C-alpha cells in the first residue's frame, strides 16, 4: 500500500460535480485539490468518434459493466438479479463522466419542487396522497437557487427563451417555469422540419410551445471564465458521443481549460476509489487502486464524494458511513428515496422525410401544459405531470432503421419487412415525455447479499418498481401525444408498455437519483442542504444522489446549481469555521 502526502481537498469523480467543485476551490482559494477519476481522458478520441456502432451500441463511453453493476428487484419480497448489460441507464466513465456523452438538455426545476412535500399536501390533502409516499423538501428554495441556476447557465452557455422574466410571462418561452432573473445567455437552436411542425400543431391546440433549453451552443460563446466554444454544427453525433468540436458543454471543454492553468490542481486518471477512510466522525482519506493497480491512500483535510449517483451511496455503504435505511421501520437514512424518471414515448409515422440524422442532442420544442402542476385536474390519480416534446437529437443509421406501422409486415425480418422498413425509413419519430418520479418508502438502495464487483466488493441493490401513479402519468401523457400526432397529421403506431413493470433493458434516461439525499433533518437525510454530511462535517457527498425525488426534465442544470451553492457553503462558511454548517 502506498501512503501519499496529505492534500487539502481530495475529490472522488471527475465529472460535472467533481470538476465544478475543483474549479471553485482551486480558483477561489490556494488549497491543493486532487481529483481521482476512474477512467481516462476521451478528448483525443472525439474527432474519430463519430461511429454509431462503438459509441451508441457498444457503449464505449460508459463504465464497463463487466467490472461493476447494480442488481435490481421489483419489491422487498422479490429476488434481485444483476443488470448484466446496459439498458435503462448509462453511467459514463472517463474525464467528464456522463457529462461528456449527455444530450445537454438544461431545464430548471420548478419552484414548488423544492418544497414538494408541503405543496402536495396543501393541494391534494393527506388522504389523497398514495400510501408509502416518501416525498421530502430539499432544504433549499428555488429563490435561493436562482442565482446558481443563472451561474450554471452562463457557465455552459445555455440557449433558450425565457417564459417568465422576474414574474412577467412571455409568450414563446415556457410560461409555466419559475421566475428568471435574466434572459438565457444565448438564443434557441435552429429548428428542424419536425420540431417546426410540432410547434404549429401544439399552438393550434391552444398549448404553449417553447424551445428546449440547450447547452449545445446555438452561437459561438465565451463564458464568464473566458472559455470560448464554437456554435453547434448539427452533425447529429451528440447523445452517447463526445462533441468533436466542443460546442456541447462538457466538463472537458468547459471546466478543464480553467483547471489546467491552476498549479494547486491535479487530476489523476485510472484511479478507482474504493473507500472513504474515517475515524471518530472525521473523513481522513480516500483509498483507491491506481492506474497500475497499486492500492493507494490519499489523505486530505476535506473529502468530496462526487461520482455518479449510484456510486456515491455505494461508496458510503462500503465505507460504513451513516445508518443504512430500513424500509420496515423507516429508520436510517443511507440508501433511501431511490428514484429514476418516468419516460413515455409514442411512435408516429408521417409521409414526409424528416432527415432525422441531422440534429443536436438538445434541439427540440416542448410544451409545459401537462408538466409539473399543470393540466392534471382532468386526470384523477395524477399528482405531477411531465413535459411533452419533439426532438431533433440526431439519429444514427442503425438505430433509426426498422420501425414500421403495426400490421405492415408479418415479422421483423425478411423481404416483406425489409420493404416496409425502407418505405417508412426516416418518416417516423417519437413524441417523448419525461415526468416527475416521486419517491416511495419501499424504493431504496442497499448492498446486494450475493453479487460483487471485480474487487469482490458487494454490488448495490436497487429496489424499485412503477406504481399506479407512474402508470397514470404515462396514460395521461400518451393521450396528449396522440392528440398532438393527430393535429400534426401523423399516424401513431403502437402504445408504449414501458410502465407496466420497471424494466432494466429499456432505456429510460440516465437520470437516477437519491440514496444520499439532502434535507432539513439528520433523521431523514444523509446530507444537509449544502450537501455536507450530517455526521461527518469534512465529508461532502454531492450530485443527483442528493435529490429527495426527481422532477421532470433533465437533472444536470439542477445538479450544477446545488453544487455551486454547496461550493459557496464550503468556501465561504466551512473554511472560515470548520464544522457542521447546520
Amino acid at each position: 500500500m502506498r501512503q501519499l502526502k496529505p492534500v487539502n481537498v481530495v475529490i472522488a469523480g471527475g465529472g460535472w460535480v467533481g470538476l465544478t467543485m475543483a474549479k471553485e476551490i482551486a480558483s477561489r482559494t490556494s488549497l491543493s485539490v486532487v481529483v481521482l477519476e476512474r477512467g481516462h481522458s476521451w478528448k483525443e478520441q472525439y474527432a474519430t468518434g463519430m461511429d454509431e456502432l462503438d459509441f451508441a451500441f457498444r457503449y464505449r463511453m460508459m463504465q464497463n459493466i463487466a467490472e461493476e453493476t447494480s442488481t435490481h428487484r421489483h419489491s422487498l419480497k422479490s429476488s434481485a438479479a444483476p443488470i448484466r448489460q446496459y439498458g435503462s441507464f448509462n453511467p459514463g466513465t472517463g474525464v467528464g463522466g456522463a457529462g461528456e456523452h449527455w444530450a445537454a438538455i438544461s431545464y430548471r426545476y420548478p419552484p414548488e419542487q423544492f418544497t414538494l412535500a408541503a405543496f402536495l399536501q396543501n393541494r391534494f390533502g393527506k388522504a389523497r396522497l398514495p400510501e408509502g409516499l416518501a416525498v421530502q423538501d430539499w432544504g433549499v428554495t428555488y429563490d435561493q437557487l436562482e442565482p446558481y441556476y443563472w451561474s450554471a447557465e452562463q457557465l455552459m452557455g445555455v440557449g433558450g427563451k425565457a417564459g417568465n422574466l422576474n414574474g412577467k410571462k412571455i409568450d414563446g418561452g415556457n410560461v409555466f417555469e419559475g421566475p428568471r432573473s435574466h434572459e438565457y445567455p444565448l438564443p434557441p437552436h435552429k429548428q428542424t422540419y419536425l420540431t417546426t411542425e410540432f410547434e404549429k400543431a401544439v399552438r393550434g391546440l391552444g398549448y404553449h410551445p417553447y424551445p428546449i433549453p440547450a447547452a449545445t451552443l446555438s452561437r459561438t460563446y465565451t463564458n464568464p471564465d473566458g472559455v470560448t466554444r464554437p456554435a453547434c454544427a448539427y452533425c447529429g453525433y451528440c447523445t452517447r458521443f463526445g462533441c468533436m468540436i466542443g460546442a456541447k458543454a462538457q466538463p472537458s471543454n468547459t471546466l478543464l481549460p480553467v483547471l489546467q492553468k491552476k498549479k494547486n490542481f491535479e487530476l489523476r486518471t485510472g484511479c478507482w476509489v474504493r473507500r472513504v477512510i474515517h475515524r471518530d466522525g472525521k473523513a481522513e482519506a480516500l483509498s483507491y487502486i491506481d492506474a497500475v493497480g497499486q492500492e493507494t491512500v490519499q489523505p486530505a483535510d476535506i473529502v468530496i464524494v462526487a461520482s455518479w449517483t449510484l456510486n456515491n451511496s455505494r461508496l458510503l455503504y462500503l465505507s460504513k458511513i451513516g445508518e443504512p435505511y430500513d424500509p420496515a421501520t423507516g429508520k436510517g437514512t443511507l440508501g433511501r428515496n431511490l428514484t429514476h424518471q418516468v419516460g413515455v414515448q409514442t411512435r408516429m409515422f408521417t409521409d414526409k422525410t424528416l432527415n432525422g440524422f441531422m440534429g443536436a442532442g438538445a434541439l427540440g420544442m416542448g410544451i409545459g401544459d401537462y408538466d409539473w402542476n399543470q393540466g392534471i385536474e382532468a386526470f384523477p390519480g395524477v399528482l405531477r405531470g411531465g413535459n411533452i416534446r419533439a426532438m431533433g437529437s440526431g439519429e444514427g443509421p442503425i438505430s433509426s432503421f426498422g420501425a414500421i406501422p403495426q400490421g405492415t409486415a408479418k415479422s421483423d425480418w425478411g423481404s416483406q419487412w425489409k420493404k416496409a422498413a425502407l418505405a417508412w425509413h426516416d418518416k417516423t419519430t417519437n413524441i417523448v415525455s419525461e415526468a416527475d418520479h416521486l419517491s416511495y418508502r419501499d424504493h431504496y438502495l442497499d448492498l446486494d447479499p450475493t453479487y460483487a464487483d471485480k474487487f469482490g466488493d458487494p454490488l448495490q441493490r436497487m429496489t424499485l418498481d412503477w406504481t399506479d401513479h407512474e402508470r397514470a402519468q404515462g396514460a395521461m401523457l400518451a393521450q396528449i401525444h396522440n392528440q398532438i400526432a393527430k393535429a400534426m397529421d401523423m399516424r401513431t403506431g403502437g402504445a408504449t408498455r414501458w410502465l407496466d413493470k420497471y424494466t432494466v433493458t429499456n432505456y429510460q434516461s440516465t437520470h437516477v437519483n437519491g440514496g444520499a439525499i439532502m434535507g432539513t433533518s439528520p433523521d431523514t437525510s444523509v446530507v444537509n442542504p449544502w450537501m455536507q454530511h450530517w455526521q461527518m462535517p469534512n465529508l461532502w457527498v454531492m450530485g443527483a444522489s442528493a435529490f429527495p425525488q426527481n422532477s421532470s426534465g433533465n437533472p444536470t442544470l439542477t445538479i450544477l446549481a446545488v453544487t455551486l451553492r454547496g461550493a459557496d457553503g464550503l468556501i465561504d462558511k466551512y473554511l472560515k469555521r470548520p464544522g457542521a454548517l447546520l
Partner: protein
Amino acid sequence: MKRREFMTLPASGLGGVLLYTLAGEPFRVQAQEGTVRVPLRFFTAAEARVVTAACERIFPKDESGPGATEAGVVIYIDRQLAGPYGRDKYRYTQAPFVESVPEHGFQGKENPREIYRAGIKQLGDFADLKPDEQDQRLRAIETSRFFRMLRQHTLEGMFSDPMHGGNAGLIGWQLIGYPGPLMSFRDQIDKVHGQPWTRKPVSLAQVTGRPVKGWEDEKD
C-alpha cells in the same frame, strides 16, 4: 496455432470496396474469377456459409435493393465475435446465473461466441436448403437468443461504418439515403424541410481524412 480459414464471396457488387474494408489485414485478399477470398477470424468456412445464408434471409436481396451478402454482413459478425464483444468483455458475467423475470433481460452464462456456435449447429444443413425451407427453419427459432442476436447483428452489419467490415462500398447507407458522418448540417437543418437531403455517402475515414479503427481492432 489453428490454420486460418477463408470464405469465398462473389466479387460482383463488393470486389474493390471489400478490398478497401480489409485494409490493414495481415492477409492478402485474393480476387480471382469474380470472387474474393476473405480470411476469417472466428468462424470456420462452413459456419460462415450458414451465417451468410441466414443473414441473407433476414435482409434479402430483392427488388427493393441489395441484401446482407452484398454488404459483407458475415465479415462484420465474424470480426465482432472474434473481438472483445464476442467473449463478453463488456457484460457482467459473474455467477450465480439465475432464471429471472423478463424485465431483467438476458441472465445466461453463454457469451455471443457460444450462442453462435450452438445456434449454427442447430441450423445444420441450412446453407443447402431452398429459401422457403430456410425461412421455415428460421421461423422456428425466431424468439431464440441466437436469432435475436443474428437479426440485430445483420442490421449492424448493414448500416455501421465500413471500418467494422460490413456495409461494403457503403451499400447500406446508399440504400437508406444516409450521407455518412458529415461534420456539419448547419446550412441544411432548418432549410431542407420535408424533403430528403441526400449525397453520395462517405465513410468516417473519408470524412476525417485518416485511418480509423473499430473497437474490435484495438488491443485490450
